[in-house]
């Protein structure tokens, strides 16, 4: 229940404040015209999942995105660039659950000793949509052996695949006008909770708790399946109606043809 509530809260927050703020801010206008280190983040951010969801510079770095003079003023809440060890807290202002589980993980505990923070795996301005592909030999072996990471990936792969498949199914239902608000909310919540869990990088914990997520996803999958069945039935009925209409059209034209023959005979 709590998981569902948290998921809903995040969804509502994203929908409410996200897109409205991803406008062409003074940050983008000014930094977009700069070269090198100061200009690069704009291009990177534009390709990011943050940009796609309407999260702009000031949402992370603070400041006033509507005032050139005061945009980077601490008086207007400008934070600037966080230090290496401050990054989890910086990102964790929005990604609360993930931060919590990360901090308890081997990664989080090693932070003070140079362990990885969020951007080591996810990148910073060009942060892409999280996927299981972020766990890969090339990236993980920058710091340690791949063995344990491979184990984590193995445990979560099946559930992740289900999540992705359900995501696509729900999007398809939405495309044909089905109200998927509730289903999307449940899926969003389950995905967030699951991804939060695997930030613990704890194979035993993942194995123990995975079945609960699988069961939640099976329930969502059943609902999706039921709607898909209804849509298939609709198509079947539609197909029958089309065939009947075509047949009726052919019969009408055949009747017309008999009259046409009579007309030609009468000429």
């Amino acid at each position: 229940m709590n998981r569902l509530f948290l998921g809903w809260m995040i969804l509502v927050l994203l929908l409410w404040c996200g897109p409205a703020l991803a406008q062409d801010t003074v940050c983008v206008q000014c930094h977009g015209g700069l070269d090198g280190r100061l200009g690069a983040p704009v291009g990177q951010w534009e390709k990011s999942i943050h940009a796609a969801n309407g999260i702009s510079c000031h949402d992370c770095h603070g400041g006033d995105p509507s005032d050139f003079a005061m945009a980077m003023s601490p008086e207007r809440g400008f934070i600037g660039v966080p230090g290496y060890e401050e990054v989890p807290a910086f990102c964790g202002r929005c990604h609360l659950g993930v931060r919590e589980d990360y901090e308890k993980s081997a990664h989080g505990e090693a932070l003070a000793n140079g362990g990885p923070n969020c951007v080591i795996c996810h990148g910073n301005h060009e942060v892409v949509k999280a996927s299981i592909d972020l766990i890969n030999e090339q990236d993980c072996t920058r710091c340690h052996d791949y063995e344990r990471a491979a184990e984590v990936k193995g445990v979560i792969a099946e559930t992740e695949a289900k999540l992705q498949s359900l995501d696509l199914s729900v999007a398809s239902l939405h495309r044909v006008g089905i109200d998927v608000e509730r289903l999307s909310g449940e899926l969003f919540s389950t995905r967030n909770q699951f991804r939060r869990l695997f930030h613990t990088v704890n194979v035993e914990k993942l194995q123990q708790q995975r079945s609960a997520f699988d069961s939640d996803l099976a329930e969502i999958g059943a609902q999706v399946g039921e709607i898909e069945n209804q849509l298939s039935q609709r198509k079947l009925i539609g197909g029958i109606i089309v065939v009947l209409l075509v047949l009726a059209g052919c019969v009408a034209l055949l009747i017309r043809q008999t009259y046409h023959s009579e007309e030609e005979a009468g000429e």
Partner: protein
Amino acid sequence: MKIKKMAIDWLDSRLGVSELLHQQLGGYKLPRNINTWYALGAVIMALFGLQFLTGILLLIYYVPDTEKAFASVTMIMNEVPFGWLFRYLHVVCSNLIIVALLLHMMSVMFMGSYKRPRELTWISGFTLLNMGLVFCLTGYLLPWSQLSFWATTVATDAAGAVPVVGEYLVSFLRGGPSVGAATLGRFFALHVLVLPLALMGLVGFHLFCVRRNGISQAPFGKHYRPVEPSDTFTHEEHHDGIPFYPNYTSKELGVIFFALAILVLITFYAPWLFIPLDALVPADPFVTPDHIKPEWYFLWAYQTLKIFPSEFLGLAVQGAAMTFLALLPFVDRGPERRPGKRPLFLTCYLLGILLFVGISLWGHYS
């Protein structure tokens, strides 16, 4: 059976119904070389009839309020029994009506049926096409989606390019400086009351003109006999023609069934063809979607506004093109109707179609 016969006899002795029916059906003769294109009028009538029916059913649940409109459409689609069917039929049918109206207009142009004495039939038909477009424009706003809101904003904004009265015109169309509750209110009233009443009146006038002048012959084949224009009223008789009922109505019925088959096919299998993604998101005046585009039948107008250096020039060109089409019977006054003997017309006709398709595609991909 006896009661039925008695009822008919009773009516007949007072109103002459049998005679009237014979005059309008079996005794109403059509040219022998009448072709399938002539059935498009009946198709359009059938589709408009379906729009009335599905529109009334949608009206039962639709709420014309900016706070509730999108939710009411979502409810129709998901909770009302067969609501999805009525809504999709309404949406798809509106597009097919425009296709049928355009084909009807193009066939009439190709066969030169707009020429004297059928100028009024042409003008009323051309007005009906425009009325169909206004129906679509006003209906587009009603779901109050992102697409509705922004497409209407763009469409009404174009009126601002008219010199002197532009600003007033935009304000008049929207009921205020921007698209909002007042716009929804007036578009709703137009869509469900004013336009249907006007449409019925105009269709009646169009049919009256068709019936009064008589159906024009198709200018092809061995049966075609050129008719000399007359200074006095003459009804084009076809004494050796075919009866309207049942001979030609069977063909009309066949074409209507095929048109309905296309409608049902799209409705059940690909309704998304006419419902872009932005139509699935509630309107948000603070978020402008990327690449907002009008529906396919307005793409030519949208692209024309972008081609010219000023919006006013674009509007003026659109206005000139539409005026030219409306007044075509007064511009092209020669009596010849056979396309093969009208090379200048045929060239302009084909170039006009290519231009329409080309500019629309340009608008789509721009």
